[in-house]
């Protein structure tokens, strides 16, 4: 991180759902904070970022990223992961605790925050493990984790198999005001499954993961959120049944929120006919009916936000027989283009609604009071988008260390142009293009 910068972003169309702004305006950031939004700002001696032809939005936030540091630096590290985030238009990311060691002590949080300060291109918010080692057997020192900087606690990658321990953890976490981010998976039901259980798993002879493996935990966790009054955020929701459960719980005022990944919004289990291991992740790609319900849930507010579940794996961990391949795909550098192409241009969401799902809502869920809006006084995190830019996804150019994406070669309309973090330009596609010519 470069510290706090001073910058004026000129000649873009400023779009901020939190303020209801959608106009041709300039944004002035002084020492890392947004100071003024007005037309024709030209303060002397201040660095200018030309935003002409772009949409200027609050810095996007991806609340579900696996940075792999510490422990799995051959897949990704804080430097490469945050550069991938900047390149993808994200000014802030929250990183999941399934590292080695697991983020279950304040020392690991300190390490991540120090590394992010030293080499990170964007803001990094660690998420603490809800239980030591993510084993789900006892409660982690949530107080120490929050004090050190954890913005949430989670069981991501494992789920909480012991309902008693989870209930106590949620009761306990209540005093800290952080949400529980739930990886909803009954691992006895998902067992050794490698894809969604249904027509295509039967056709391909691959062991299935039934929708019920997710839905049982979504329902259980909604009930526990109601019991404990601790906010529960459902990570990577993937089935129509889960959407219905969350919708019903929200209607009764249960403190529950949900995120969906770009890949669950765009792909289905029918895509697996090639046995492409870049289509293997948890939760698995579901059916077309599920995908359509996810879209409905996104539209009616049941699903609050879009998060990538960026899960880097090395080539050798993916280029193996399908049942042996690691679960997960990367998403930081494709999410914005996929969202613009598949959601905005296909009229699933308006652009302001998309910004709500990718900036405002994640800031609200994680309690990041200074993020998610361009109001004066907020952090100077800004993303510039060009919804009309035509791109072809080229994984060889990714900043991420890993290449495990199924979207290579996809032609998409819409792309991030620049990412500003605390008044410093963390990524600028135009500058990169200029220096090359």
């Amino acid at each position: 991180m470069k510290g706090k910068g001073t910058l004026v972003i000129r000649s873009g169309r400023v779009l901020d759902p939190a303020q209801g702004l959608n106009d041709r305006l300039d944004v002035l950031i002084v020492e890392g904070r947004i100071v003024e939004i007005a037309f024709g700002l030209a303060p002397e001696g201040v660095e200018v970022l030309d935003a002409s032809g772009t949409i200027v939005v609050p810095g996007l936030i991806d609340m579900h990223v696996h940075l792999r540091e510490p422990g799995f630096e051959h897949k990704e590290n804080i430097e490469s992961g945050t550069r991938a985030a900047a390149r993808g238009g994200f000014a802030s990311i929250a990183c999941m605790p399934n590292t080695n060691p697991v983020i279950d002590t304040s020392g690991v949080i300190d390490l991540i925050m120090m590394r992010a300060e030293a080499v990170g291109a964007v803001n990094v918010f660690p998420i603490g493990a809800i239980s030591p080692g993510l084993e789900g057997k006892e409660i982690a020192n949530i107080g120490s984790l929050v004090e050190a900087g954890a913005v949430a606690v989670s069981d991501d990658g494992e789920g909480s198999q012991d309902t008693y321990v989870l209930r106590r953890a949620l009761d306990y976490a209540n005093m800290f005001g952080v949400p529980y981010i739930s990886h909803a998976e009954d691992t006895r039901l998902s067992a050794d499954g490698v894809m969604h259980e249904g027509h295509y798993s039967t056709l391909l002879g691959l062991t299935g993961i039934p929708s019920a493996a997710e839905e049982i935990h979504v329902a259980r966790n909604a009930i526990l959120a109601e019991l404990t009054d601790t906010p529960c955020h459902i990570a990577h929701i993937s089935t129509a049944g889960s959407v219905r459960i969350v919708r019903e719980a929200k209607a009764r005022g249960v403190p529950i929120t949900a995120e969906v990944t770009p890949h669950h919004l765009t792909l289905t289990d029918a895509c697996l006919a090639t046995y492409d291991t870049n289509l293997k992740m948890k939760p698995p790609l579901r059916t077309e009916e599920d995908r359509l319900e996810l879209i409905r849930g996104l539209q009616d507010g049941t699903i609050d936000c879009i998060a990538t579940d960026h899960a880097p794996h090395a080539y050798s961990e993916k280029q193996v027989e399908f049942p042996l391949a690691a679960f997960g795909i990367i998403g930081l550098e494709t999410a914005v283009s996929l969202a613009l192409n598949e959601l905005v241009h296909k009229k699933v969401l308006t652009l302001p609604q998309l910004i709500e799902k990718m900036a405002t809502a994640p800031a609200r869920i994680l309690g990041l009071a200074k993020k998610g809006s361009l109001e004066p006084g907020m952090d100077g995190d800004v993303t510039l988008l060009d919804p009309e830019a035509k791109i072809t996804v080229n994984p060889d150019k990714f900043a991420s260390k890993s290449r495990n994406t199924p979207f290579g070669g996809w032609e998409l309309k819409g792309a991030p142009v620049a990412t500003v973090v605390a008044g410093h330009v963390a990524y600028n596609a135009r500058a990169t293009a200029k220096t090359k010519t």
Partner: protein
Amino acid sequence: MARTTKPRAKPTAPATHWTRRHLLGLEDVSADEIRLILETARSFKEVSTRAIKKVPALRGKTVVNLFFEASTRTRTSFEVAAKRLSADVLSIAASGSSVVKGETLIDTVHTLEAYHIDLLVMRHAASGAPHFLVRHCTSRVINAGDGMHEHPTQALLDLFTISERGKAFDGLKVAIIGDIIHSRVARSDVFALTKLGTHVVLCGPPTLAPKRFEAFGATCTSRLEEALDGADVVYCLRMQFERQQANFLPSVGEYVRLFGVTAERMKLAKPDAIVMHPGPLNRGIELTSEVADSAQSVVLDQVTNGVAVRMAVLFLLAGVN
């Protein structure tokens, strides 16, 4: 038993030539291509009855049998088939997965290809392993069974055996009984038989024969009587005992009581019905010894025909440029 071939409802000339470099499964193979393989196998069957059981069709070609799962029957059958075509054969039994050995599947196959092999016959515990492999290798690949997915040459030898017994596929009723969900044999048989107009009835408890299979054109039932009623072919699958531990079955005893094929139950099938099994048999479980050894049983014909069918597949693939 009626031995004359009934005229087919729609006589179709076999495809004039074979164009595939690999045989990975039967799901995407056409009815004409299946007929072409069976026709080719018919001409090869006679070779095995000669005093000198060899033709020079694959002389100078190298066939590698790469078996990552224990198999005696299929490996031997491919070995005999390749030798009768005069190919040089190398059989490799690689126990366990490639990863356990510390070498990836791609590296194993690239090493073999450095010997300039021509055809690779692979058995692998992972569904889709041959489909993954063909994206990374230059050899022609024959799937000799991939996980729970497909076992195309087994289904082809089953079809060959059915048609050899004078049964036309169109309108035939084939009952497949047992552990359907974990069976690559059942999948390949369903894909091939339904393409040829055969009515396939899949029978087993819903844990092992779920209704999802009806999407492939088969009928599913958990009533053995319904499956056997008027059947032309009764196909028993091998029961794996580990299914009981995984709670697909309460006990092998209850399976035998509900789904074991006995001489008494065979009376529900057509009088000239044949009994098939991919082997090896669990006598007294899938079927009684009385049924296995009856005149209706064609289990050994299946083994004999396996060689002819595999000769045909090796020959057709080797001939594609």
